Structures are given as structure tokens and as C-alpha cells.
């Protein structure tokens, strides 16, 4: 009786050990005869196909893609895995704003030795985001998200509107839309998308974080950001623009049925519009973002990620080689464009053959990507701090509250500043 129980228990434990050994393939390195197996956590659609090309050409360095989460959630998983000491991937797709967080947690390796030579292949603003202003290089830029304005050309024509070139014109257009058709809005202000607001602030010249020697400076409520916040706050209070969050079923419907007729967004918008508002194909057009002063041409970045090699990678040299290939090789970047739907960070790729045709969703705008490249070159650089997530969460909470309380947006920006700076101080960062 008891001995049988013990025997059964022993079998169970041994069995568990065997199964654990069989299934933890991504935990233990398998190097057989000089071949290296690398894991790559990414979320770009169809990136597996690009990786297949690499695997075919490089049998010694085999890369396996795992798509389990996006953006911030992926960062959390990587950090948790790093804390636990096992299960950390060798390569990981990291959005630019998450790089300082990962570097601060010793998750990313410095690959300056392997990829430093590629510096000139990328715009300065993007390269700065992967070096964090230091001599080290923590990732290779993959794609970029310069911001531009998308609008329904058919509805603009119908309502007799012209494309606004300055933010003042944009405000006037918004009011006109409401006047002519109370069921429509020019666009919506989203309290759920801090990256969008960050990009707009970048355009105005905001510098939320900056480094002075060994001290951080946090200035989320600098005049540039306040200008942007007050501008949009005024429009929301007036009712000139809508206040619903983006990326909801309601927002999809609004894009489909013309309740919203313009969208300040980034270069990757065609893919989103195609997925969410397929019925409006061919009715949209793209133009540069409205400017704060007439004649200027500046923009900011919304999103965009890089490929990093982790500190725990089995073979950093091999991983860095792959990362560089993925983001600079003409075939690889072309495929990332056509199948992944992203806008490459590499300058060569931006002028490459894959981007000679306009996106399928914009069949009538032949020079879409030529224009995009010109706009991309004007994108401002930006320094991200080590606690971007705190700032982003504060944005969501503060701005959504400001909307429901009908309070001015300037106060929301101050709340973001307060939350960010106190979190950094609490953790011991040196904040000036």
C-alpha cells in the first residue's frame, strides 16, 4: 500500500523530469557540430518567412521565431525571463522607447563591435535611439514610424475642404466639418495612445527626457508638449474633434462609415486601414502633417522597433550577424516591406525597389513612398527614459480623466510629469 504509493510517486517524478527535458527545447542550447540555434521573439507579420531565407542560406546559424506578445507585453516577458534566469531569447524585437528599460535591466548586449559599421545606413535620429547617446550599440534599427496625415480625399472633396498645412488650418477645418455635417468629425483625440501623442510632441520639439552627464532631466511638461496638449484640449472642449480612443471596434466603424475623415498617423497606417476599414480602399490620401509654422517641415515618430541581441544569447556574434542582415540586406528588407508591412529604417531600403509602388490601399498615390522618405528625413530625434511605461500609463489615466472631467489638458501633462519624475526618484535614479 504505502510502498506502492511511493513507487507511483517516484515514477511520476521521473516521468515529469523526462517530459520537462523533452519540452524545454528553447531553454537549453543545442549546439551540434558547430551549429547554433537561436530564438527570436518578434511580432512582425510573416517575419518567419524572412527568417526562413536566412536559415536556408546559413545552415550553421538557425533562427526560430516565436510570436507570443507585442510591444510592452513582450518587454515584460523578456524581463521576467531574465529575472528567472532561463528562457531568455537570443534575439528580441524591441520598440525604440523600450530600449532604455531593457538596457537598464542588463538584458541587452552591446553589439557595437559587430554592427557599429552600419551607422551610416540609418538616419541619425534612429541611430541615436539605439545607442542611447553612448558609445555602445544596443540594437539594430528595424523600422521607422514617421508621422503624416491621412484623410478621406473623397469626403474632403464632398465637403469642400482643402488639405490643412498648418495646425491652425487644421483647427479651422475641424470646425468646418462639424458645421457642415454634425455627424462627422475631422478626427479624434485618443487618450489611449500615448505613442501617438509622443510623436506629435516630438514634432513640436519636445524633449521629455535628456541626459546631462550622470543625471537625467525629465521635462514632459515642457512648453512644446504643453502647446500640443492645449491645442488638442481646446478642440476637444469645443467639440471640434471627437474624444474616443483609437483601435476599438467603435473606431473601426467610424473609419468605415466616414464618421472620422482624417487620421494623423504614421507610415505604417495603410496596413491598419486595410485591415480595419477595407471598404474604404482607394478613398484615402496621404499628406505631410500640419506644421506649427507655415513653411516648416518637421515630424515625429510613432512606433518603430529594432532588433536586439540579449545578454544571455548563446552566441552574440552570430545573433548580431543575423540582426544586421535582417535590417540591411536588400532582399530581407524588401520582404519585410512586402510581407511584414513595415517601413524599413535602412536608408537604402527606403529607396529600394519594394517601395517604388504605392501601398495597395493607396492605389492612386503613386509617389506615396517618395513622399514618405522625404517626410522620414525630417523626423526629430528623441531620448527615451528608463521608465517610459510609467509615463505612458500616466498619459492614459490623466488624459482619459481630463476628457471625462472636461478639464484642460495642460493639467494632464503635469500629472504625467509628476508621475514619471517621482517614479524615477523612488527607484534611485539621479534626476536633476
Amino acid at each position, binding site marked *: *500500500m*504505502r510502498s506502492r*504509493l511511493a513507487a507511483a*510517486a517516484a515514477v511520476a517524478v521521473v516521468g515529469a523530469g523526462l517530459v520537462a527535458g523533452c519540452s524545454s527545447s528553447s531553454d537549453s542550447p543545442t549546439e551540434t557540430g558547430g551549429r547554433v540555434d537561436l530564438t527570436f521573439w518578434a511580432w512582425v507579420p510573416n517575419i518567419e518567412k524572412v527568417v526562413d531565407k536566412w536559415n536556408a542560406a546559413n545552415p550553421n546559424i538557425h533562427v526560430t521565431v516565436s510570436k507570443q506578445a507585442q510591444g*510592452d*507585453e513582450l518587454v*515584460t516577458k523578456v*524581463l521576467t525571463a531574465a*529575472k528567472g534566469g532561463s528562457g531568455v531569447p537570443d534575439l528580441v524585437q524591441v520598440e525604440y522607447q523600450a530600449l*532604455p*528599460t531593457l*538596457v*537598464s*535591466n*542588463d538584458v541587452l548586449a552591446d553589439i557595437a563591435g559587430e554592427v557599429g559599421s552600419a551607422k551610416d545606413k540609418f538616419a541619425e535620429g534612429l541611430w541615436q535611439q539605439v545607442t*542611447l547617446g*553612448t558609445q555602445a550599440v544596443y540594437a539594430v534599427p528595424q523600422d521607422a514610424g514617421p508621422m503624416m496625415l491621412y484623410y478621406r480625399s473623397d469626403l474632403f472633396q464632398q465637403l469642400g475642404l482643402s488639405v490643412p498645412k498648418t495646425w491652425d488650418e487644421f483647427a479651422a477645418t475641424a470646425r468646418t466639418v462639424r458645421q457642415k455635417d454634425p455627424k462627422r468629425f475631422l478626427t479624434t483625440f485618443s*487618450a*489611449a495612445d500615448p505613442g501617438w501623442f509622443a510623436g506629435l510632441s516630438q514634432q513640436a520639439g519636445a524633449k521629455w527626457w535628456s*541626459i546631462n552627464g*550622470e*543625471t*537625467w532631466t525629465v521635462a514632459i511638461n515642457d512648453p512644446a508638449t504643453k502647446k500640443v496638449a492645449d491645442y488638442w484640449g481646446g478642440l476637444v472642449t469645443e467639440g471640434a474633434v471627437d*474624444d*474616443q*480612443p483609437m*483601435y*476599438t*471596434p*467603435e473606431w473601426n*466603424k*467610424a473609419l468605415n*462609415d466616414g*464618421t472620422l475623415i482624417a487620421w494623423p498617423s504614421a507610415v505604417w497606417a495603410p496596413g491598419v486601414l486595410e485591415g480595419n476599414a477595407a471598404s474604404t480602399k482607394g478613398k484615402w490620401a496621404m499628406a505631410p502633417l500640419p506644421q506649427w509654422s507655415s513653411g516648416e517641415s518637421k515630424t515625429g515618430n510613432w512606433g518603430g522597433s529594432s532588433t536586439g541581441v540579449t545578454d544571455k544569447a548563446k552566441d552574440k556574434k552570430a545573433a548580431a550577424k543575423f540582426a544586421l542582415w535582417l535590417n540591411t540586406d536588400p532582399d530581407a528588407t524588401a520582404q519585410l516591406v512586402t510581407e511584414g508591412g513595415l517601413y524599413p529604417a535602412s536608408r537604402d531600403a527606403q529607396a529600394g525597389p519594394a517601395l517604388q509602388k504605392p501601398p495597395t490601399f493607396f492605389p492612386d498615390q503613386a509617389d506615396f513612398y517618395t513622399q514618405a522618405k522625404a517626410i522620414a528625413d525630417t523626423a526629430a530625434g528623441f531620448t527615451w527614459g*528608463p*521608465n517610459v*511605461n*510609467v509615463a505612458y*500609463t500616466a498619459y*492614459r*489615466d490623466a488624459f*482619459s*480623466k481630463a*476628457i*471625462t472631467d472636461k478639464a484642460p489638458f495642460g493639467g494632464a501633462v503635469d500629472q504625467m510629469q509628476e508621475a514619471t519624475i517621482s*517614479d524615477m526618484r523612488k*527607484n*534611485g*535614479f*539621479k534626476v536633476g
Partner: protein
Amino acid sequence: MAAVARRRRTAQHLVPYAFLAPAIVMFSLFLLAPIGYTAYLSLRKIKVEGLGLGRGSRKEVFAGLENYRQALGDAELWRGAGRVLVYGAILTPVMLGLALVFALLLDSPRIGLRRFSRISIFLPFAVPVVIASLLWGFLYLPSVSPGQHLMRGLGLPELDLLGPDLIVFALANIGIWGGVGFNMIVIYTALRAIPRELYESARIDGCSEFQVAVRVKIPIVVPALILTTIFSVIATLQVFSEPMTLRPLTNSLASTWSPIMKIYQDAFARNDIHSAAATSMVIALVTLVLSFGFLRLVQNRAFGAENQ
């Protein structure tokens, strides 16, 4: 003979412990150890030096009760607790009231379509909370909601179910929808176990069905009601998935709307496992006190059977 008997008695003494061993081992590994680790983490914090970007500039150091002080002093946590109490005050009575009514109706003799109703009302139990919240989100959003469509058609004013005034009802509704079936079945089976004679006599005396229900049935199923209330209260205190799923759809939900959401934010968004640990211990303690208080009350009634 005596030796054998003694050995048997000794062996018998140890049998319960042997039988409990698997449960104790698993429990220790997957519940006790993490809880202990959480308690340990709650006493530590991260200290950064300078810019925090260089190697090894982050260190985990002992923090004493600092995390607890911060958690208890955080106004947002108390606000969240208040919101959850309101949510619970709406959810629990309505859900259990409906469950009771449905169970009583199912137990009444003159009801039609019994099987259909029983299965339908129980169906939401099969839907994961994340999916259920998404489905209801679709049904709440004004432009895609059929309800709003109907209201517009009838000329009635639109209800902003995701607005700040009604959001707590919208959330409670998801919980009610998901939980009423299960609780109904629990109460119903308690009702079915009542000997028929108890209320046949009442019926013969001329009591209406309603009076039978109120005077005879309800008092007898009070223990079942107490049990379902406790579990409902515990679940309410830990509400998380519904507000998390609805949050991207509306401006009315802060990321720390419920205390558990605050823990999630700390652990997953701010990567501050230490604050999260401290807040978790606080919440666990509160839940423990409340639940054990109730369990004490019902312990006799719940286990009276085996003490005979």
C-alpha cells in the same frame, strides 16, 4: 499477533499523512512557495545608481516595510477598493437574487420550457471572462451595439454605458451574466434535496406557490445562499479581467480601477514586482480575514454531517 496489531495501528496513524502528501507537496510548491516568495519580495526594492544605464547599476536591496507604507498610503488603492465595493454591492445581490428567483422558478411545478431555460442560463459559465468582456464590449459600444440601435430607432436617448456614470453597471452586468447560471444551479440542487413532504403539507393548507417559496424553501436553502455569497464576495474583491478588457474601449476606466489592476500595473507595466508584492500581501490579508470570518460562521453548518 499483538506485534502485528501494533504495526498496523502505527501504519494506520501515518496513512492520512501519506495520502495527503501529494496535495501538500503540490500545494507547497505552487502556492506556498510563491506566496512565501511574494512576501520576501515585498520586503525588498530596486535601487538604481546614477543614470541606471550601465552594467550592474541596478541592485535589489532590503526595504523593510517601505513598500507596505507606500501601498497603504496610496490614495489610488483606497479609491480602487471603494470602486470595487460599489461594484460588489451591485453585483452580489442582483446576481444571487436572480439566481434564487430562477432556481425557485425551476423548482416550481407549473413552469414550461424548463430544460431550455436551465441550459441557456448556465451557458455563460462556458465562456472565458476575457472573451465575455470583449463580447459585451461590442454590445456596449454605441455605434456597433444593437441595443443602442434599437434605442435610436425608438427615439429614446442613447445610454452611454461606457461613460463614467454607468460604467460600474456595465461591468457588474458582465459579472452577473457570467455568474448567475452557476449560482442558480447550486441553489437549485439545494432545493431539489428538500423532502417534498415539507411543503406538500403547506400546499394542502392552501399556501400559494409564492408563499411556499418564501416561507419554506428560502429558509432551508439559506446555507447554500451563504456559501455562494462568500465565493461571490471573494471573486468580486479580485475583479480584474472585465475592467482590463473594457479599458481600451472607454475613457472611463483608469488603469488602476480595481486593486488587482493596480497590482498588474505595478508588476507588468512598471516592472516593479516589489510594490506589486506588497499590495498583494495586503489584499490577501484582507480577503483572508473576511473569508475566515465567514467560514467560521458557517463551519458548523457546512460540516455538521460528518461530526455525527
